[in-house]
């Protein structure tokens, strides 16, 4: 018996997460034992980068070998034997299961037959779905590592811990799409989430970061608990954790009422009835839980489970009723972590969501499809409306990424499994453009720690490459040419919605596209408008200067008043206005960033505001924010030595993302052709 439980592991299949985990351990050891020398910091970064690249190499190797999906960690033969011993299961089940397997794995379907269903359930499967997510996560990982090299050059954050945690997150994110059972799914999801709390809070003495870490921790833990509850209900109902088994059981459960009943009299329904009968006689799960009575009607329990799982994942991807954490956490976290949250963590969340909803709960789509459609509509609308009012760059990207989550969710709100590939396509395109935007934001944040939208004024003149790149990424996010990648992404989603008959969602998305355009283009215009300090000296076109002044004046007055209005009665830390004031004050007084504010009211008002807000807000943020801002100040303005070293990686990151986004713009089929199980409607 023990012999039969021992299983062989396909190390090639698990190579990417394994490499990442080993690299994580190596980084930790090197950090502990290498002497404290200046070269250690870049060396650890290089080791991390090498680890990610090697993992990426394995993913590419896996992708380039054709053939069936690689499966490992399968349920041993001996344990599946009882189930396999009943041949009558097969006639009923194959069509459905076959379809699911085909959609998600993209492997050529094995000829329908008894063998198809009785293949052992495996916990770790490397198929097209896995590969596309793993590739996405690892390429994004490369960019995040490059960005963090820039961040770490300041020497404020412990390098070894940072890289270790980053690699752990990546390990989880690579393992997650390969997971095909609920336990492994949750473990991988936690492996993605847990290190991110620490990464967020790793910048010590930064009140905002600590606050963000705590918020992220609470939200994530709650969402995990909710997910676990839902998953336990699913397990309780079906008695299995493997997604394919789960789908099978649920499908048969759904089929039972349709069958003539326990009597099994009808001759025509014989195969189906026989299948159902077999289940009722004794479906043996991998955990040896035997159901020996007709299953009670547990559909309501399944519904509850679906809602709970959906809610848990909605937290992870910041979908709307559970989106509130995004703004504060993104803003408080270091920029690379925000990029990680918005791309890697989100991709992991969507991978898990798609796996559970489509693979496992495909037969229950009647329950979750309308739910997802409503969540998608709310997410894109609320995210866009919140983004409209933002003045902080990362906060704007945070809400915009919430809105983009809505677009990614939208195809899942179509009662058609093929629509999932539209979600995946959008996610891949979104990853490229959003990472690019974050890379430029990282670059700018080195100069302007405050990182408000107005710090981007005239970026295209100070730094044409970065400015034009950011304009390009923003237009991509808005979905307008020349950012064709965004346009194609939106067309892909619109197509699924229109074809799937969810016209109302398409209209909601259309309106949202227009709302989103406004703030993206407003930001892009700022980048292309000469900075006020610059315009006074150089011969800029007359109208521009006047306009700048008007803008500033208009901005300063309502901004200050609204900040007051919010902080007067705000929960500490919950409002952006409050934090902005806390941040802006020391910077304005230290006179960094050239001309602080052109509008005459601003200099007079801003230093005064903390006095008003400080007593009103009892909690931490204002006080710790000041030293943090000063530290950043010293970093941005003072430490010229690390400047060059820190500049290179982020430039490479911008270059990489711009190249990828351009490539996707010209030839989106690079991604689209790779998508699993897709049939164009024209064919």
């Amino acid at each position, binding site marked *: 018996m023990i012999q039969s439980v021992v299983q062989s592991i396909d190390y090639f299949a698990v190579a990417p997460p394994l490499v990442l985990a080993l690299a994580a351990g190596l980084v930790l050891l090197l950090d502990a034992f290498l002497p404290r020398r200046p070269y250690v910091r870049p060396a650890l970064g290089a080791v991390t980068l090498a680890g990610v690249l090697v993992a990426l190499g394995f993913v590419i190797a896996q992708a380039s070998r054709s053939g069936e999906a690689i499966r490992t960690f399968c349920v041993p033969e001996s344990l599946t034997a009882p189930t396999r011993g009943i041949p009558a299961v097969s006639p009923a089940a194959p069509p459905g299961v076959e379809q699911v397997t085909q959609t998600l794995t993209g492997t050529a379907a094995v000829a329908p037959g008894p063998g198809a269903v009785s293949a052992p359930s495996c916990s770790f499967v490397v198929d097209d779905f896995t590969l596309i997510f793993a590739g996405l996560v690892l390429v994004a990982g490369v960019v995040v590592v490059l960005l963090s090299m820039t961040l770490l050059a300041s020497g404020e954050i412990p390098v070894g811990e940072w890289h270790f945690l980053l690699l752990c997150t990546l390990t989880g994110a690579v393992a997650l799409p390969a997971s095909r059972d609920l336990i492994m799914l949750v473990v991988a999801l936690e492996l993605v989430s847990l290190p991110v709390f620490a990464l967020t809070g790793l910048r010590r003495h930064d009140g905002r970061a600590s606050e963000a870490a705590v918020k992220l921790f609470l939200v994530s833990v709650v969402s995990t608990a909710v997910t676990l509850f839902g998953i336990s209900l699913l397990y309780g109902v079906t008695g299995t954790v493997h997604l394919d088994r789960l789908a099978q059981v649920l499908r048969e459960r759904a089929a039972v009422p349709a069958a003539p009943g326990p009597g099994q009299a009808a001759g025509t329904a014989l195969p189906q009835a026989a299948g159902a009968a077999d289940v009722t006689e004794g479906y043996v799960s991998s955990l040896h839980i035997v159901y020996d009575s007709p299953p009670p009607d547990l559909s309501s329990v399944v519904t509850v489970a679906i809602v709970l799982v959906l809610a848990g994942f909605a937290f992870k991807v910041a979908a709307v009723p559970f989106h509130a954490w995004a703004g504060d956490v993104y803003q408080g976290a270091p920029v690379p972590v925000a990029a990680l949250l918005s791309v890697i963590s989100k991709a992991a969340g969507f991978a898990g969501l798609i796996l559970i909803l489509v693979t496992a709960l495909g037969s229950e789509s009647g329950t979750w499809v309308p739910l997802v459609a409503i969540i998608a509509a709310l997410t894109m609308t609320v995210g866009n409306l919140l983004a409209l009012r933002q003045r902080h760059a990362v906060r704007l990207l945070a809400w915009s990424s919430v809105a983009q989550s809505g677009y990614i969710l939208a195809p899942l709100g179509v009662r058609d499994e093929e629509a999932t590939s539209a979600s995946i396509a959008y996610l891949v395109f979104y990853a490229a453009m959003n990472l690019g935007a974050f890379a430029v934001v990282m670059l700018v944040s080195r100069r302007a720690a405050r990182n408000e939208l107005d710090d981007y004024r005239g970026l295209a003149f100070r730094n044409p490459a970065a400015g034009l790149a950011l304009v390009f990424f923003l237009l991509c996010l808005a979905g307008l040419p020349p950012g064709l990648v965004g346009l194609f992404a939106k067309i892909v989603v619109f197509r699924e919605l229109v074809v799937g008959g969810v016209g109302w969602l398409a209209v909601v998305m259309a309106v949202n596209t*227009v709302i989103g355009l406004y703030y993206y283009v407003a930001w892009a215009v700022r980048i292309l408008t000469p900075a006020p300090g610059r315009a006074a000296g150089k011969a800029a076109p007359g109208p521009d200067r006047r306009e700048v002044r008007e803008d500033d004046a208009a901005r300063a007055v309502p901004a200050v008043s609204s900040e007051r209005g919010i902080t007067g009665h705000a929960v500490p830390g919950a409002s952006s206005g409050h934090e902005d004031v806390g941040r802006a004050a020391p910077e304005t007084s230290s006179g960094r960033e050239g001309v602080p504010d052109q509008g005459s009211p601003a200099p007079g008002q801003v230093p005064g505001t903390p006095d008003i807000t400080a007593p009103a807000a009892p909690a931490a943020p204002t006080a710790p924010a000041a030293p943090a801002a000063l530290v950043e100040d010293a970093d941005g303005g003072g430490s010229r030595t690390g400047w060059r070293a820190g500049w290179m990686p982020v430039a490479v990151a911008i270059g990489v993302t711009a190249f990828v986004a351009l490539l996707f713009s010209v030839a989106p089929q690079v991604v689209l052709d790779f998508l699993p199980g897709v049939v164009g409607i024209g064919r």
Partner: protein
Amino acid sequence: MSWVLVALLVVPLAGALMLLVPYGKGRLLRAHALTVSGVTFALSLVAAVAYGSDGAVGMRLVTDLAWVPWLNLRFHLGVDGVSLPLVVLTTLLTFLCFVYMCREGGNGPDRLPRGELGPGRPRALVFTLLLLEVGVVGTFLALDLLLFFVFFEVVLIPMYFVIAIWGGHARRAAANKFILYTLLGSVVLLIGLLFVWARTGTLDMVALASAHGAGMPRSAQTLAFVAIGVGLAVKTPMWPLHTWLPAAHTEAPTVGSVLLAGVLLKMGTYGFARIAIPILPEGAAAVAPWLGAFAVIGIVYGCLACLAQRDLKRMIAYSSIGHMGFVLLGFATLTPVGLNAALFGNIAHGLITALLFFVVGGIKERYGTADIPALGGGMLARLPHLASLLTFACVASLGLPGLAGFWGEMLALLGAFDPAPGLSRPLFLTFMVLGGIGTVLTAAYFLVMLSRVTHGRPTETVHAPLLAAVGPAETREAVAAAERVTEKVTADAEQVVEETMAGGEDSGPVDTAVVDDTGGAMARRDTEGARGSDSSGGGGRARGGRVRDVTPHELAAWVPLVVLILLFGLWPKALLSLTDPVVHGLLGAP
């Protein structure tokens, strides 16, 4: 020869991309702009010659390559009698815009003068205009629904920046309004196109047009037509969806207005002719009465709005709404006559309105304002050539027989007299009568405007600087300077006013100061630019000197339009022989 169409897109695109590489300034940029747009124009003429005039139906010079197979998106280009004139019009107008930008003097941001370049970021403007050309030409050439949409979208961002960076006072708001409106239209259009795709399974416009809606039930066609129609109507613009247009036109620089009115609006009407009507004939039949009603409302509304305008550019913008109403009315009849009228009206409007905006841009540059009362009168006496051109353009626009504007309107009304069989004849007769009233009103507002601006005794009045619009902080000094100028001139001029009041019945409003016009323009410019020191201005005119009449560059840019307006007015067959065979094909008529 199919390389010609690809080259039509590649040349301006490459020309734009070359501008990203830094190199010498001034003269080189000017030569670059003229060469690229000139080559593009020459290529479009080559395409026209290659197209021939044998009257056979069907696409020519077709290029068909797979681009994104997964989306069924093909790089499918071709040209026929409907698109060819529009392509030539686009390349011609772009070229003429660059010629116009080479003019000396003036203070607009849209200049490419010889020697040192002005402060208006001309390089970026050339880049933007070339991209705009790529988008517009691509829209007219595309034979794939999604490719059409992609090019349709390409136009948005360049036009947005043309308005938002090189525009007038309220340009930011106007640009935002423009892009939000048109993007909303585009997205609705996209949904409609995808709906067609979902029902028919193909994106090929030629195949779809030859199928004449086969495979789509009437209700689905109506739905798709409404979605596509709304998307196109925003661009056209049709009456209730037009509100972005006056603001955009008023604020855009001259070249922006010219291209916006001359070709961008045509993308909407072209979409009706190429996509909506041939692909969805039953939907078109169902919606045509509504389309006609909105078109006629647009005609009358545009005319009435024109009567109330004080600003010349705004007036022409509203007149565009009226003219586009005639085009839409032509489409609404669903007859070959109506469609021919619409396509002819398209081209005529492109030529005439482009000329009008050019001339008004010249006037605004000379007087510093386009406010009709502030312009005073007597332009024919002061600037005879400019005023003659304005008169010519206005007369062409109001549809005088013998000029291009006449045929489009007349044929549209003729089409409404005898609409397609399924349509209610009395309804369309009503439309015809209302449209006829519209032509009368058109004549009325243009003649009133001409009488106010060109006739009468030259009072040499200009509008006082809009001091109120200037921000407080840094412009104080400049404002003060401007005020000094204004006061001085006002004082000087008071007696002149008294003298001239007797003759000029339309004296300016209270804030009209009689000044030496150059000084006034300068003063205004000072306040606008808040650069008191730099008031000597760009060449050609000294303080106190006469305003120059039409300059050679302006003449070079405008004369081709005049010639073409005359040509198509006297010889409409030149265009109709191109469009007529295609129109019969589009309607499925024999």
